[in-house]
């Protein structure tokens, strides 16, 4: 107790700095992966992608990032064990942030595959299992998180596969793909709008509604989300009106004009992707931070503590700064390298991944956005939609599971005993 009242401010500032650093790392690297597909398929310029990412990453983090943050903050560890020694939780979360951040830095210099989500989960499990006791880890929850890492790419792949198959059937393999594209694409736009509105209503604005004493049933939520979807659809139809056929380009490729219609759709799925990414990955940075802030302010470990919204804002800001300072470079590199992905495929991959990630965010499962997107792209590939996919990437993903978890855990244990030595 004394330690916290004595060093409270220092610990708080440290946590903010580490948390911001993590958020910066997410913005600098992960966002580029999430948005790179849009840039690569020439649906968006880098500037547009960054603008969309800034707005929707932030919105996703702020409006739908609460559930995953709660998981990282108090779902992985059993907080009752810490009630006697709240300072241990503070050290632990600080070391988790520092460990994950350091590991990301080392791995990026060495060029090793990592995922921010895996680093932070590994780090939290590491410090609590070794630093406190094996019982301090909520193994059941950890099990379901790890399972979700396998399930999420598969689910995203399945959704993308089905989406692309529907596009083939309704648009690409018809007599007049261009007219059919204009006819059916608004419905995909509706789905994007509905999905985001639904998550925002049921998860993000839950506490706002509670304060205002508004209670909405699931049907009401779905209805309001449908209205939002219709608005998105109307906006999309307006944008589609401006796309005209280009017969001279169609001589070289009959699908040229059709792809331009899909490029408009991809603007919307890029927004969804950024929103989904923000809602899931911001937690990696702000989850531990929230745990520290709560404990320091309350002086005890409480499972029911509320989540100050400034923490989500800090995380969102960190992501945006990371994107603006470094992420745009990565995005440019990725955009240059992905040249085979046309908007009709890119949209299917992005929408499949975004839906999966948003679903995980709603359930409070921290998953890797990049891995989910890889699964989604493979799904489109299975529908014979992409010229060539490098299956070595699957090995890379497996390696990232094997390497990142122990590395994050090991570093967290190291830092935990360091903090304990310094402050305790």
């Amino acid at each position, binding site marked *: 107790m004394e330690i916290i009242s004595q060093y409270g401010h220092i610990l708080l500032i440290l946590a903010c700095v580490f948390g911001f650093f993590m958020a910066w790392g997410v913005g*600098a*690297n992960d966002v580029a*992966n999430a948005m*790179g*597909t849009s840039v*690569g398929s020439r649906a968006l310029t880098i500037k547009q992608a960054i603008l969309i990412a800034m707005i929707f990453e932030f919105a996703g983090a702020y409006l739908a990032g609460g559930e995953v943050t709660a998981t990282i903050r108090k779902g992985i560890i059993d907080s009752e064990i810490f009630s006697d020694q709240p300072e241990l939780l503070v050290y632990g979360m600080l070391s988790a942030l520092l460990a994950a951040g350091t590991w990301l830095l080392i*791995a*990026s210099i060495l*060029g*090793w*595959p*990592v*995922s921010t989500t895996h680093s932070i989960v590994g780090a939290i499990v590491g410090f609590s299992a070794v630093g406190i006791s094996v019982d301090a880890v909520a193994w059941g929850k950890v099990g379901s998180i790890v399972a979700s890492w396998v399930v999420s790419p598969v689910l995203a792949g399945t959704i993308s596969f089905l989406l*692309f198959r529907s596009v*083939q059937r309704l648009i*690409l*393999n*018809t*007599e007049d793909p261009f007219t059919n594209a204009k006819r059916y694409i608004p419905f995909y736009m509706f789905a994007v709008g509905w999905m985001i509105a639904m998550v925002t209503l049921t998860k993000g604005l839950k506490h706002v509604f509670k304060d205002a004493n508004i209670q909405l049933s699931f049907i009401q939520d779905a209805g309001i989300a449908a209205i939002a979807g219709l608005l998105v659809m109307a906006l999309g139809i307006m944008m589609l009106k401006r796309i005209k056929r280009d017969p001279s380009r169609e001589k070289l*490729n*009959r*699908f040229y004009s059709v792809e331009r219609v899909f490029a408009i759709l991809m603007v919307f799925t890029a927004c969804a992707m950024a929103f989904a990414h923000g809602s899931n990955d911001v937690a990696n940075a702000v989850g531990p931070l929230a745990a520290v802030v709560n404990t320091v302010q309350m002086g005890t470990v409480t499972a029911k503590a509320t989540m100050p919204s400034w923490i989500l804002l800090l995380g969102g800001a960190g992501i945006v700064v990371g994107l603006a300072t*470094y992420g745009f470079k*990565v995005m440019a*590199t*990725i955009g240059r*390298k*992905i*040249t*085979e*992905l*046309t908007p*009709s495929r890119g949209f299917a991959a992005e929408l499949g991944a975004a839906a999966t990630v948003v679903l995980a965010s709603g359930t409070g499962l921290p998953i890797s956005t*990049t*891995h989910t*997107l*890889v699964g989604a*792209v*493979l799904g489109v*590939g299975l*529908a*014979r*939609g*992409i*010229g*060539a*996919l*490098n*299956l*070595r*990437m699957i090995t*890379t*993903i497996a390696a*990232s599971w094997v390497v990142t978890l122990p590395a994050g855990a090991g570093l967290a244990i190291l830092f935990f005993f360091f903090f304990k030595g310094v402050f305790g």
Partner: protein
Amino acid sequence: MALTNIANLFGRSPIKPIKEHMATAHEASADLVPFFEALIAGDLAQAEKIQQRISSAENRADDIKRDLRLHLPDSLFMPVSRSDLLELLHAQDKVANTAQDIAGLAIGRKMEIPAKLQNLMSTFVESAVATSAQALRAINELDELLESGFAGREMDIAKRMTEELDDQERKSDKFEVEIRAALFEIEQDLPPVNVIFLYRVIELIGELADCAHGVGNRLQLLLAR
């Protein structure tokens, strides 16, 4: 930052190089038309120039072939079977090789086309080259086939193109029979060695049409899966 970069997931699509390869192979075979024009006109210098052009196109086709083979590792996941693709590449390569053989043999022998064969020879060469042009058109459909996910209407279009290729090859076969018959009529009056090689060149031109036809067959197999 290397990290788990989504760009690493995307391999280089084989479709573009395979189209380029066919275009280059056809470039070699298409040059046979002016080549035989020069031979018929008795302009050996011009013929030699064109023969070198054919040779260089064949070399470029070889380069594309080698490069594509190197970039098709087992770990690549493609909408078409890897072995079918390599077979297609092989078939395309034969078009370029045969064109080079024809020009090389004719130049090596400083070949003269007997006056009575000249008209027939022109039509025959043009028809063989038309076969390779049709093969190129069919191969160029691969873009649209990929776009449509190798299904539906695009498959029908591609199939129709390979059928047209069949017709074209049959036409070329017919001309081959005609020109051989015409050569048989006059072979008594020509130096025997020249006659042997004239037969040989006719045979090779027929082979060119066969090779182009083979490209269509390979394409059909590739699409059949």
